[in-house]
Every structure is written in C-alpha cells, then in structure tokens.
C-alpha cells in the first residue's frame, strides 16, 4: 500500500498563458510534455517540468475541448466547439487535415495506437472514426447507437470505449464485432482506463466516480466526495493504479484509494472548477487544468 505522501500535492509550476478557461490538459506519451486547450481557441504545448510554454496552435474557430497526441509526438488531434476535428503537425504547427461531419460540438478525440485513426465523440450522439492515412475527410465509421451526447472516448488496441450522457459506457470491440453497453444510470462525463486496461473509471454527473470491471461490467467501487454536477470533469488513475484522482467543481483535487474508496487527500488546487487532470505515465506527477485559466503541475 503506497502511502499518501506519494501523491502529488506540491505545486511545482503554474502554466499561465491561456486566456479563459482551460478545458483539457494532457501529458504526452512519455510525460515530458503536456498539451492544453481551452476556451481561447488555442492549443498550447508546454514543458510542465520546467514550466515553459513551447508552442501555440491556433486555428480553431471556437473553444477547443480536447486534444491528443500520437505516441511518436509527431501529430496532434484536437476538437472543439467548431464541430471539426483538426489533425495537426506538431513541429510546424500547421493543420494537416480537418475532419468535418459532426453535427455539433465535438467533446473528445483520441488517436488509436498506430495513429492511423482518430475517433471523435460528439454532442451529436455519435462517435466518428476518421482515417489519417488516406486523404478522405469522410468518416470511415459512424457509431450512432448512443442516445445522448458522447462525452469521452478511450481506445485500446482493439476496442473503442466511449461514455455518454445517456448513462452508458459502450465498448465497441472491433475484433469480435460486438458492442457492449454498460448502463450506469447516470450521465457519464468522462471515462478513463486503468493502466492495466482491466477497468474503466467513469465520472458520473451525480458527483460519483465509478470503477467498472471491463470484462464483466460489474461495478467495483464508487468514489464520492467531490462535486461534479454540470461540468465535464476529468478523472484518472495514478500511474500505479493505486489511486484515483479527480477534479471537483469547487476547485479541489481529490485522491481516493482505489480499493476502499476513501478520500486520501484533497486540496484546493484552483480558484475555480478543475476541468482536467492528467497523471504522468511513470512519475508521481500530475497536471490539472481549471476554468481559472491556469494549468498547475503537481509533484510529491
């Protein structure tokens, strides 16, 4: 049992630059850099460990809601209120492709493992898969079995997992051609996968995080204490999968024990809603983004 002191709670750096709320902050694959996007219609690349702003990507017409980077750090994908998915070149900062087709705002976007497909989740109750290899800008697959806005998407090697406001977490297994729908009964805000890939952590709008076993769909644990009623708040597991981290609408960050769901630590991180948390893939380091326009880097 790792102890509480290992949890990042010391403010290492504050990344300032976004004008307006930051909607998402994500580490890259190796955790050396992080990306953020926000209401100021920009995507920013940072070195969170040194607190340096590296680059700004501007092209979105409205707020940018999600961003993801490939494993090799060469491409970005972002989405937002302008109903488009942008495929960027990291180095030049230019948009390589724009994927249009979502009927309304796009909430989340992810690359697949080979960075060949981008899957986006939209307010138009659909998931769309876009091909990065061909020059076609048409989606190669539209999944529209959701009955409400799709908030979050995760990809594994063989599956597409998405959480929706209709209360379901749906797993689309490409390999066997099955859709598995786990109805949680509450709008799902955000899903994130455990590092071992066995569990899904779903943030529900009843201020509860729920941990699901992916194979059986059973509810393993519920994590409560934070406030999550109207915002899209991220949640994540720590790099060791021992703790659950999540933001709260009152500006706090919460850490729960994975197993017994007790709140191990909570501290005021931001002056406003903590929209996003992202945990370093290997170290005890976390970044959090908030509506107050800052990104903070937390270390032990």
């Amino acid at each position, binding site marked *: 049992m790792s102890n509480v002191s290992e949890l990042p709670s010391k403010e290492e750096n504050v990344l300032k630059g976004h004008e307006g709320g930051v909607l998402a902050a994500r580490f890259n694959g190796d955790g050396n850099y992080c990306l953020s996007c926000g209401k100021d219609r920009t995507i920013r690349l940072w070195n969170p460990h040194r607190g340096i702003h590296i680059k700004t990507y*501007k092209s979105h017409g409205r707020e940018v809601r999600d961003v993801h980077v490939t*494993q*090799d750090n*060469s491409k970005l994908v972002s989405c937002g209120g302008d109903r488009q998915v942008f495929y960027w070149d990291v180095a030049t900062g230019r948009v390589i492709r724009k994927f249009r087709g979502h009927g309304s705002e796009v909430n989340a976007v992810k690359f*697949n*493992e*080979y960075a*060949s*497909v981008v899957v986006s989740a939209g307010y138009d109750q659909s998931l769309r*898969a876009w*091909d990065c*290899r*061909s020059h076609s800008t048409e989606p*190669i*697959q539209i*999944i529209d*079995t959701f009955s409400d806005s799709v908030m979050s998407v995760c990809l594994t*090697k*063989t599956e597409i997992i998405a959480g929706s406001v209709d209360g379901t*977490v749906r797993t*689309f*297994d*490409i*390999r*066997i*051609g*099955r*859709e*598995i*729908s*786990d*109805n*949680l*009964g*509450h709008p799902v805000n955000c899903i994130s996968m455990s*590092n*071992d*890939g*066995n569990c899904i952590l779903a943030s529900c709008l*009843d201020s509860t995080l*729920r941990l*699901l*076993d*992916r*194979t*059986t*769909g*059973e*509810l393993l644990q519920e994590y409560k204490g934070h406030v999550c009623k109207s915002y899209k708040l991220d949640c994540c597991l720590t790099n060791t999968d021992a703790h659950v981290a999540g933001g709260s609408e009152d500006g706090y960050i919460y850490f729960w024990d994975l197993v017994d769901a007790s709140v191990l630590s909570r501290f005021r991180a931001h002056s406003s809603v903590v929209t996003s948390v992202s945990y370093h893939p290997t170290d005890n380091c976390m970044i959090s983004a908030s509506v107050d326009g800052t990104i903070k880097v937390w270390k032990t």
Partner: protein
Amino acid sequence: MDIDEDDFVFYGTPIEREEELNSRKKKAVAEASGHLRTLPSWKQEVRDEEGRRRFHGAFTGGFSAGYYNTAGSKEGWTPQSFTSSRKNRAEFKQQIMLNFLDEDEKEELEGRSLGTASQFDTFGFTAAEIARKQAEKEQQQRPSAVPGPAPDEIVLPATESIGVKLLLKMGWRHGHSIKDSHANSLYKARREARKAFLAFSSDDAKSQPEDSEPGDEDHKSILDHQPIDDGFPSSQSTPVYIINPKEDTHGLGYDPYKHAPEFREKKRTRVSGKRGSGNKQALSIKDSLFGLKFTFGPSAGRAAPGFGIGALEDYDAEDEDVYASAYDIEDTYIQEDEEPLRSNTENNPKLVWKEQGVLPGFKVASNSDYQLERFDPPVIPNDFLPHHKFPGPLEFDKKPATPPPPPPEVPPPKDDNLKVLIEGVATLVARCGKLFEDLSREKNQSNPLFSFLIGGNGHDYYLRKLWEEQQKHNGQKKIALDGKLSSSVDKMTVESRGKILGEMPLERSSRDLSSSIASVNVNLPFNLSDTFTKPESFSEFPEVAKPFQDDPGKQERFEQFLKEKYQGGIRSTASAGASNMSEAARARERLDFEAAVEAIEKGKLNKENKLYSQQIVGFPASGGMQFTSGGLQQGKDTQDEDLATKKMYPRREEFQWRPSSILCKRFDLIDPFMGKPPPPPRMRSKMDSLIVTSDLKAMKMEEAFSADRNQPLALQFSPQEVSKDVVDRETEPEVQVENVERPVDLYKAIFSDDSDDEIEASNFNTKEDPEKKIEVAHSTLNRLMAGDFLESLGKELGLEVPPNPPYSTNIARSSHQKESAIANAGNDNILSVEEKSFSIPIAHGVSQEERVANDEKTAKKGEFRKDEQPRPSEDKSDKVYSGKIAQEDKKKAKLPRSLHRKRSSTSSEDERSRKRSRRHRYSSSDSYSDSSNDHRDRHRSRSKGRKKRSSREKKSSKKYSKQHKHGSRDSQ
C-alpha cells in the same frame, strides 16, 4: 533577376493585388492568421472574424467612422509647437481633459453630468453628494484601518423619509408634536418669511406694516381660539425662512426677467401689493379655482395650460411657448383684472377660518372640487369562497373543457418492482395532485429508481398508469363529491376543504366531518349510522392500520407519518423516518405508508357510498387484515426492490456491432464480418436469434468447464492453436490457386497503401470459386449449426482433441503435418517453459487477435470444403479452439497484472514480435511461427507460393510494411 534580388534587402511584404479580388472570407482568414499586409489606412477595412465589414450604424458613419475607422486625420497627427523666448515666455499650459475633446464629445460629457444646480439644491443632496465624494477621495488617500474604500452605504445611517425631511425643513424637530397648531406656527413662519422677503425689496417697506397687521390679528384670534397652543414647544420651533418662495407657475429655475430685470421689480411690487391686501392664495390654486381668469391666447379653456401635458397628449402650437415672456406679460395683465375680485373675498375669510381652522386667507369652498383620492379595496364578489387553492390542483377539481387524450397503452416495464413502484406513485399522484409528483420528483432527483418521473425508464408506463388512476379517482370522487359540491357549492366548510386537501381532521372534528358528509348523502336513513360508525372507524384507525406489525420500528414510523400527514401542510421530511435510512428506502417507505393510508381511505369511501351498516362490524377486521397482508406484501416487494436497484446498475447489454472493414484495417485487425452481408441494424447476438437451447447450454457448460481450468487452458491452448494453423494451411491451396494470377499483390501488400488491402480483402470472397459463392451465403448458418454440435462434441472429448484428424484426411500433406506435429510437441514444451517470458503475452497480443480472426476464417473455409469432403473432427478442433479463444479473451483480464502490463506496453512488444516475425523468415526453428515456417516451406516448393492467401503471412508482411512505413514516417 534572381541574382539581382540577392543584392536587395526587402523590408516588409509586397502588397498582394489579388487580395482585393478574393472573397472576403479568404481575407478574413488571412487576417486572422496575421497574413494581412500592412496596408495604408485608407485601404484597410475593418472586419469582424467572419469577414463582414464593420458597420457603425447608418447614421454614425456607415462602414467608415472617423478617418477610415481610425482616430487619425488626413493631416495626421501634428505635434504642438512650442516656442519660448526670453521676451515672451511660453506659459505653462495646464492641460485638462476638455482640451482633447471635440465638440460633440464635450456636449456628451456635459449632458451626462446632470445634477441640481447649487442654487436649487433645496435639500442639499447634491452638496452632500459632492462632500461625500470628496471625503471618499480623501479616504482613499490616507491609510485606514479597514483596507479598501469604506463603503459609505454601509456606514451611513438610514436616511430619513422625505416627509421627515420636509418637516425638518419646515422647522419641525424631533420630539416635537405635529399638531393643528402647527398651522399657526406655519403661518407665523410664513409671516416671518414674508417679512424677510419684503425687507429685501425697499419698495415694499411701507406696505410691511399693513401686511403684518392682519396677520397679527389672525394670530390673536388663534390665541383666543387655542390659548394653549403657544405654550407648546412646537410653536416655538424656529421658522425656516424661505428666502425666495416659489409662487409662480414657471418651471423650476426659469427666470422670465432674466434679460429684463427692471420688470422684476415691477412684478415684485405688484405681488407685494397683493400680499399687502392679505391675499395668500397661490397663483395655481387661484387658477384652478377661478379657471375663467385665464383669458390669454387660445388656450383659455384649459385648466392648466402648458402644465400637465403628458407625453401622450398632443403638443399643440399654443403649448409651445409656455415659457415665452409673452405669457408673463399677459399674466400680469390678468392679475390686474383680478385685483378687485380678490379684495372682495379678502375680508370675509377670517371668520370662517377662525371657526374651522382654515388657513388664513382661505375660505372653505361650499362645494369642494377637491376630492380625496381613495382607492377602494377590490370588491369581493358575492360568490367568492374563502377557499385556499392548493398550488397543484387536484384533477377532479378542475374540469378541462376537453380532457387531454389519454397516453397510449404501454406495456409495463419488465422489472416487476419498478412496475409496482410506478403504480404506487401514479395512484398517489392521482390522489394527492400534481404537487406530490413534483415533490417526489424533487426529492428523488438523484434516485435512479424514480427516473420514470423525469422521463427515464418507465416514464410512458407511468403516464399511462397515472391517467388510469386519475380516471378511476375522478370516478370515485365524483360520486362522493357530486352531491356535496352541489349542496356546499355556496359555502365550503373547513371540513370539506380539509377533505379535498386530504387533511385528516382532528379526532373531534372527524365526527363533524362524518356528519357533514353524511348530511350530504341523500340517504337519510344511513346518516345516523354514519355518525356513529364513522368516528369509530377513524378512532380505530391507528389500531387497525398496523400494516407493519412485523417491524415495530416501521410501524412506529408509520404512525409518525400518519400524525404528520394529518397535521396538514407540507410535512417536514427530515423528521419523518429514521435518520439512518437511505433516501431511497425512505422514499419507498413513504410510498408504502401512503398506499396503506390510501387503502384505508378507500375503505372509508366505500363505507360512505354503499350500504354498509351491516358491514361495519366486519370492516375493521377485514380491512385491517387486508392492510396487513397488503402491507406485508409491499414490504417484501420493497425489500426485493432494494436488491433490484442495487443490481439494476450497472446493467450490461451486448449487441452486434459491425466495424467497417477499413476501421479494422486501420486498427490492424481482421474484420470479423469479412465477407458477410451487412447485418440488419442492431441484430441481436446469435444466442438470441439462433438455436437458443443448445447454444445456451453449450455456453454454460463451457463456462463451468473453463471456470475451474483457467490456467491449464491457457497453456493447453497453444498446441491446439498450432493444429489450427495446420488446418489453416490445408485450406490454403484452394485459395491460392486463383491468386497465382495476381503477381502484383505482393507489391501491393508491401508498398501500396492499406486501402488496397481492403479491396483485396473484399475481393477475397468474390474471387473464390464461383460455386462457393452460395456457400458463402450459407456459411454463417452452417458454421453456427455445425459449431454448436461440434462444440458439445469437443467438450465431451475433453480439451485434448488430438490434431490427427487432418492426418487421416489429408494424406498428401501428411509429411507437413508430421513436421508440425513434432513442432507442436516442441512448441508445447517451449511454451510452458517460456510462459513467463513473452510467448504468452504475444499469444494474447496482436498475433493472437489475428489468430482468432484467422480462426474464424478457416472455420468457414473448412465448411466450404465440408460439402465436398466432410471432416468433422477438424471442425471440431476448430470450434473447441475458437470457443477457448473466446474464453481466453475473458480470461485475459483476469490474468496477473504483470502479464497485462506486458501486453499493454505495446510498442516494445510489437517491436519484438515484428522482429521475431522477420527473423522467422530466415530461421525456421522458431516454435511460434511454425505455421508461417512451413507455409514458407511450401512456398519454396512452389514457384509462386509467395502469392499466399494466408492472412498470417499477409499480416506479418503487412505489419512489416506498416512498420516500415511507420519508420519512414517517423524519420520524416
């Protein structure tokens, strides 16, 4: 040219001519990205983010305000010249803001600062405001204990009302009484004021004594009348001198003699002369009293010309010059005319005034024009009933002209408990009105159980049920109320009201209620029994209604609930129920209680409406029994419900989903639906649609079987897999035949984009032997049927299905198989040895996925051939294997984390597997790739063997190519 250009240094960017031709959109985009060249200001256009020209308004510049939308001018900015010499020193100019404003800005600025001029600052508000601001400024400058500006609004005391202010201005002081005698002091004050006023004008000096004379008389007469008054402090309060009382009808601040001060004197003398005669009537009053006096102009008929013209009244020409000096001149004429009249009236008033307390100089009008404006309270209509309307009206209370159409009949939700709950709520809502629904919705917002209230699961059914209940309820109530309403329509008693509201009257009044209800009933004979039996049943209520006898705690809460319920009003939920109960449990219990109470009430109604005098004796018992049983049942239900809700979420459902083939390609997976016709949208899984029983049984058996043999399975599965591969290979020759003709494929597989593979893949089936096409169509069914059968067979045989069937069937290839069998044996060992390293993870990883898909394919192929050459055993092994794979998938997640870690740390793993696959090309000793190995052997034996159809080979090569591509892309 080019060479020349090297010598030049270019500053800036050239102006792009095309810019003008382009659409504004493009320009906007360019602008947004900072590509807009620096144009001279007259060429620039201000645009918003969507490329529209900025529009300032039709009358404020159109598209261009200022100087080309800038603050500049054509001349540009010219600095002030500064010259100073010894002779004439340049004086230091204090610059103020106004220096920099142009005319209209100044105007605007002035217009904004509207305030009372200091001379009209009657109450000193403006001065106070200025002082306050000043103080604030000072406050900000000096340090204070309280940081920040102290909010004056907080510090300031509550302001006095305007009335108090006025009184204070008039000399009244706090603690003094305001009496009738005040008129006296007021008069005195006025007199003083007048004196002071007259003292100003030297001309009136002589008239002053005259003036004071009648006043003194008046005063004396007052003294006669009210001798005590003088002793009052109020009379001693200092009069406020109104220096310049406003007595004309001009607007505030308007001075008609502004440019002709000589007339002012004239006027003053006239006025003072008037006053000298003791006339104290204000001009306005006089005007209104003697409207005929105004003869000037065409507006003679108007009561108050010029004044009181509202915004909506039309503004005539004659109204325009109200303030014109002509008015005043004419006015003065008129007043001269008035003079005699006034002197007439002047002598009389004193007497009258003395008696009635009228102001001096006034006389009491015989019939007063003045009417105290009073707003009468609204007239209460005769038929008004003082009856409180409940916010959520009961359905039977209101009768819509056209009842809304009933909601459609909906089958009840599958969940029995939910159904019960919905029905319960519907009944209650029908009985208690919409308010209850709202309340419970609010209470149970987060409770998934009540989601049907918000429109979730079972909402339709709830609506239907509610409607039904309402119908029923209305029917019931109508019977009860028809007579009552007609008789009590004019007078609603407390009891009837309480009844409608669902209040339970107190013990004593319950008698009254029953009697009143009874009196309503036409059946007189039963009234008597009513009066006797009703209270009895009511008083028995608590004893009877013990539906929760088995649970004393609950029973207690029920009683508490009853008590609270019949206290009327909105119950405090906090006190209801045990605090340690969950919200959901409490809600359910409340429902329980409500239902029980309702049942009792129903019984009561029955009693009212039927001949029941004989039944009375029996009722309590039977009813009680009924309640008890019902309650118990419900209690049980709720317990079940509790469990059910726990189980309800998360709920897992499974559907078929068809990924597009290109998606599979991009994910590096084999399309599970390859070659199958597109399924109907959202087909249920095969378990539901096909031979259900055997399938289910098989699944169950399999599960039971695999449950206890997790680990062995994982190990054993490799030999079978190998055998699988063997089988796989056997199917290949047939396929390869027709692919030989396509030598380009290899290149495609390696170099071309993946989308080509897709075509290839889709061709895969169409290119097969034409006679197989039909089989393809049937393949699914066949496979499933056969699969089920073989699965069970395989199970009976156990896991160790020997890979020999192929041997027997395919003698031609026996040598290969033998090889592979040996390899299998070796492989087995290796696997078990290597298990800890990466062979298992790999088996679980990408390659394994391929294998699964591969497997399916081969199974299919096997069936194709089955028609020609049935080989059940092979299929069997297939099926067993595939079943195990499926099992395996499930198991995967259960494996220790380390394994998964390996699996999920994909990049390195993949790298390795790729390397391995590459290595296999050169060394055939590896156990893992035995399939591809002897595949390759075969290829070698055939000249065109490379034109493989084996997806394994294809995969590996593709992967290689892909990786190659990755690499090249990365290096870019």
